[in-house]
C-alpha cells in the first residue's frame, strides 16, 4: 500500500512536469510580451503549438539516417527522466535515489549529445554551426555546474537533491557567501543551458545568433514537437532545481497526506510563477551577447563555481 502510494506520487510528478512545462514557457513569453507592452499570445499557446506539430506529418530530409528519427525521442526521454526526480512538491520520491545531481547533469549531457548529433546528421552548415556552438557552451557550462554541485555537496554532505533540500531548511545553514555565489553561478548556467537571452534568443531564427534553433532547423512535425517539449522541460527542470535547492520551503516528505501535497503543490506553483516572472524581467532588460562573449560569461560562472567551493571554508561549520 505504501509502495503504491509512493509510486503514485512518482507518477504524478512525472505527469506534472510534462504538463507544466509548456505552461511555464507560455507564461514567460506572456510576461515578456506584457513588459514590452504587447498583448502577447495566450499562456496556453505552447500547448496549441505542440498539438498542432504532433498532428502534422513529419518531413525528413532524404539523406537523414535512423539517428535523426530516433534522437528526438531519446532527447525527450533523457530530459524527462532527469526532470522526474527533481523534488517539485515532494521530496524523497521513490526513484529519486536512481540519479543524484551529478547524474541529472549527466542525463542532460546525454540529451545534448544526441541533439548535437541530430543537428549534424543531415549535413548542413547550419546544423554544424549549431552543434559546434552548443558543445562549446556545454564545455564551460557543465564544469561550472559540477563545481556548483561540489560546493553544495561539500556543504550539505550529499549529492542527493532530497537530502540537500532537507539540509537547506535547517536553521543552522544560515546565510552563506558560498551559497550566494553558487546561486549566482547556477542562474548563469541555467540561462546558458536553456538558450535564453543573453546567450541565445529563443524567439529568433536569425542564423548568425542562433544556437539551439540552428540544430533543430531540419526537424518538423512530431519530431520537432518532442524536441520543443524537451527544451520546455529543461527550463522547468532548471527552475525547479534552483527553487528546490535555494527555496526549499514547503516541500512535503514521502509519506505526507494528500492535503499536504496540495499545499506543497500550490507553493511550488507560486515559486514557478515568481521564478518565471524574474526570468522574463531579466530577459527583457538584457541584450543578447556576441557568440564569442559567451565563453567569458560562462567562464565567469565557472570561476564563481570555483569561488563557491573555496568560500565554503570561511563559513561557520557545525
Amino acid at each position, binding site marked *: 500500500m505504501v509502495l503504491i502510494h509512493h509510486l503514485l506520487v512518482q507518477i504524478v510528478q512525472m505527469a506534472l512536469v510534462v504538463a507544466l512545462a509548456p505552461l511555464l514557457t507560455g507564461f514567460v513569453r506572456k510576461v515578456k510580451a506584457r513588459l514590452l507592452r504587447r498583448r502577447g499570445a495566450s499562456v496556453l499557446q505552447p500547448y496549441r503549438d505542440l498539438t498542432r506539430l504532433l498532428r502534422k506529418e*513529419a518531413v525528413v530530409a532524404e539523406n537523414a539516417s535512423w539517428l535523426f528519427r530516433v534522437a528526438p525521442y531519446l532527447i525527450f526521454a533523457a530530459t524527462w527522466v532527469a526532470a522526474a526526480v527533481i523534488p517539485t512538491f515532494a521530496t524523497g520520491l521513490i526513484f529519486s535515489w536512481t540519479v*543524484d545531481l551529478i547524474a541529472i547533469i549527466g542525463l542532460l549531457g546525454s540529451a545534448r549529445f544526441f541533439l548535437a548529433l541530430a543537428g549534424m546528421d543531415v549535413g548542413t552548415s547550419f546544423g554544424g554551426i549549431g552543434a559546434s556552438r552548443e558543445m562549446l557552451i556545454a564545455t564551460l557550462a557543465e*564544469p561550472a555546474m559540477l563545481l556548483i554541485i561540489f560546493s553544495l555537496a561539500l556543504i550539505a554532505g550529499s549529492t542527493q537533491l532530497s537530502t540537500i533540500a532537507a539540509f537547506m531548511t535547517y536553521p543552522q545553514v544560515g546565510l552563506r557567501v558560498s551559497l550566494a555565489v553558487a546561486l549566482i553561478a547556477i542562474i548563469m548556467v541555467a540561462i546558458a543551458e536553456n538558450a535564453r537571452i543573453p546567450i541565445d534568443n529563443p524567439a529568433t531564427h536569425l542564423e548568425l545568433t542562433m544556437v539551439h534553433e540552428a540544430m533543430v532547423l531540419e526537424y518538423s512535425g512530431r519530431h520537432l514537437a518532442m524536441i520543443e517539449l524537451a527544451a520546455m522541460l529543461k527550463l522547468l527542470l532548471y527552475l525547479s532545481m534552483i527553487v528546490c535547492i535555494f527555496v526549499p520551503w514547503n516541500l512535503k516528505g514521502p509519506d505526507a497526506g494528500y492535503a499536504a501535497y496540495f499545499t506543497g503543490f500550490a507553493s511550488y506553483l507560486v515559486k514557478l510563477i515568481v521564478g518565471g516572472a524574474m526570468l522574463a524581467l531579466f530577459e527583457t532588460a538584457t541584450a543578447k551577447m556576441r557568440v564569442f562573449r559567451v565563453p567569458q560569461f560562462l567562464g565567469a560562472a565557472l570561476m564563481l563555481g570555483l569561488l563557491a567551493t573555496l568560500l565554503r571554508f570561511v563559513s561557520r561549520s557545525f
Partner: protein
Amino acid sequence: MTSVALMLSCVAALLATVVLAAFIARSRLATPAIYSLSLGISAIAFSTGLVQLSSPAADSPALVLPFGLPWLGAHFRLDPLAAFFLVVVNLGGAFASLYGLGYGRHEHAPHRVLPFFPAFLVGMNLVILSDDAFTFLLSWEFMSLASWALVMAHHRDAGNRRAGYIYIVMASFGTLALLLAFGLLAGPDGAYGFAAMRAAQHTPFTTGLVFVLLMLGAGSKAGLVPLHVWLPLAHPAAPSHVSALMSGVMTKVAVYGVIRVLFDLVGTPAWWSSLVVLLIGGGTAVLGILHALMERDLKRMLAYSTIENIGVVFVGLGLALAFKDAGMELAAALAMTAALFQVLNHSFFKSLLFFGAGAVLTQTGERDLEKLGGLIHRMPVTAFAFLVACVAISALPPFNGFASEWLVFQAILQSPDLPQWALTILVPAVGGLLALSAAVAAACFVRAFGIAFLGQPITEASAGASEADRFSLAAMAILAALCLLAGILPGIVIDALSPVTKLLVGGRMPVQTDVPWLSIVPVAESRSSYNGLLVFLFIGFSAWLSATVIHRFASRALRRAPVWDCGFPGIDATMQYTAGSFAQPARRVFGTLVFRARERVDMPPPGALIPARFELEFHDLVWEGLCLPVAGAVGFVAEKLNHLQFLTIRRYLSLVFLALVLLLLVLALWS
C-alpha cells in the same frame, strides 16, 4: 596446477605462437592461424585471471623459475592486483585477436605484424606476473620492443619512422628511470625481489626519489603530460588492432607499474606525492582532450583521448594516495575503485573506438576526418558500435564511462576530511578540471562521430565504403555490449574490485550487490546513489512510450523531402561543417591560451582578384618548450663527446686510467 603456473603456460604458448608465426608468416593461412591461437590463449588467460580475482581464497600463489639473475631466479606471483590487470590485458588481447582475424586480411605486410603481435601480449602478461625487479624490467623492455616493432610495421611511411624513433627514445628513457627507481628500492644489497622491497624500510628521501623516477618512467609509458609526446605519434602508426592494444591495454600496464610501486612496494609515500599525482592527472586530462578536440586525424585523436583517460585514472590514484595517507580507508577504497574501474572501462571503449577507426580505415583508406562523412549509411553496424563507444567515453549515463567518472566525483567529495589544507582546497579544483575534460570529451566525440559518420560523404572513398567483415563486427558488437553492461551493472564490477582495494589501501567499498534494485551506494544512501540499470530502463521506456503514444494517437506520417536548410538552394556535400570549423570556437576559447593558436584572415577587398587566405598558427608548447630543447641539449653534448672518438691510443688509456682512479676514490671516500 596453480593459477600462476597456468598463466605462465599461457605465456609459453604465446611464445610458441611467436615462433610459429616467424616460420609461417608468409603463408596464406598464417593470419587466421596466429590470431585464432592468440584469441584462444588470451581467452584462457582471461578466465584464469577472472577466477583468481573472484576466488574468495586469493592466497597469491607464487612461483620461482630458474631464469634471470642466477642468485635470484625469476619470481612470478598472482595477487588480486595482478589478476585484475591480467583480466584487462587478456580481454583486450582476446578482442584484438578476434578483430585481427578479419582486419589482418587487409594487411599488406602480415609478416611484419604476425610474429610481434603475440610477442607484445607475452610482454604485457609477463610485466604483470613478475614478482622481482629484474623480471619486471626485462618484460617491460620486451613489451616496449615488441610494440616498437609493431609501430614500425608500416615503416615505408616517413611519419611512422619518425613515430618509431621518438617512441624508442622515450621508451628507453622510461626504462632507464624505472631501472634507477628499482635500484633505489633494492638498496645496496641488491634485494631485487618484490617481497624484499616490500619488507624493507625506505627513508623518505628514497621514497621521494623513487616517486619522481616512477612518474618519469611509468608515467611516460602511460602518457602523462609532459611526457606524452610519443603517444599520439606511435599509437596511431601501428595497425588498428595494435593501436587498440597499445592505447587500451599497454597504457594500463604502465598504470599497473605505478600502482605496484606506489601502493605496494614503497610503503607510504609522503602526502605531497598525492598532490603531484592529482595535479599532473588533472592537467593531463584537460590537455589531452583539448589536443584531441583540435586533431583531425581520427586515430591520433583517439590517442590524445587516451591521454585524457589516463589523466582521469591518475586523479583517482592521487585521491587514493591522499586518503590512504590520511588513514581514510573507505574513501581510499572508493578512489582506488574509481581509478581501476576507469582502467577497465577505458580498455573497453578505447579498443572499440580503435576497432571502429580501423574498420573505417580499411573501408575508405582515410584517417583524415575532413575526408570522411555519411558512413552511417554505408557501415550501419560499425557506426552504431562507434556511437556507443562515443557516448561511453564522453562519460554520459547510462554507459560505463559515466559510472567510473561518477565514482571519481564521489571520491572528490570525500576530500573535506583530509588533514592538509592544500589538498582540501585543490581537490575540488581538480574535480573542476575533470568536469571540464569530460565536457570537452563530449564535444570532441560529437565532432568525431558527427563528421565521420553523419552528414554527407565528401570524398569518393567515403561514398563507396561498405560494411566491415564479420570478425571485426563481432569484436565491436561484444565490446559495445560490455560498455553498456558495465554501465548498468557497476555494482558487480565494484564488488569484483574489492580484493584489489583491500590489498592496496587496506579497505574496501561496501558490498554493492546487496543494495536493492542493483544501485551503487559508495558511502551511504543519503549521501549519494546511482542506478544505471534503472536509468537505462527509464530512458528506454520513456522513449518507447512517447514514440508509441504519438504514433498511435497523433501522427505517423513521414515524408522524405530535399534538405531544407532555411530554404537555401543547391546544398552540396562540400558546404557541410568540417572538423576544423567544428573545433574553431573551442580553439578560440581554449586554444589561444593552451596552444597559442592564432588565426589570420586576409580578405581581399571586393573586386580584387587575389584569393582570400586563412592562416592558422598552432603550437604544441610541450613539444617546443620541453622536447626540442632537451633534444637540442642531447645533440649538443653528443656533438662534443664525438671528439672522444678520434683520440690516440695513449689518450684512451689515460681516460680508462682516470676513470679507474676516480671510481677508487669514490669508493675510498664513500665508506
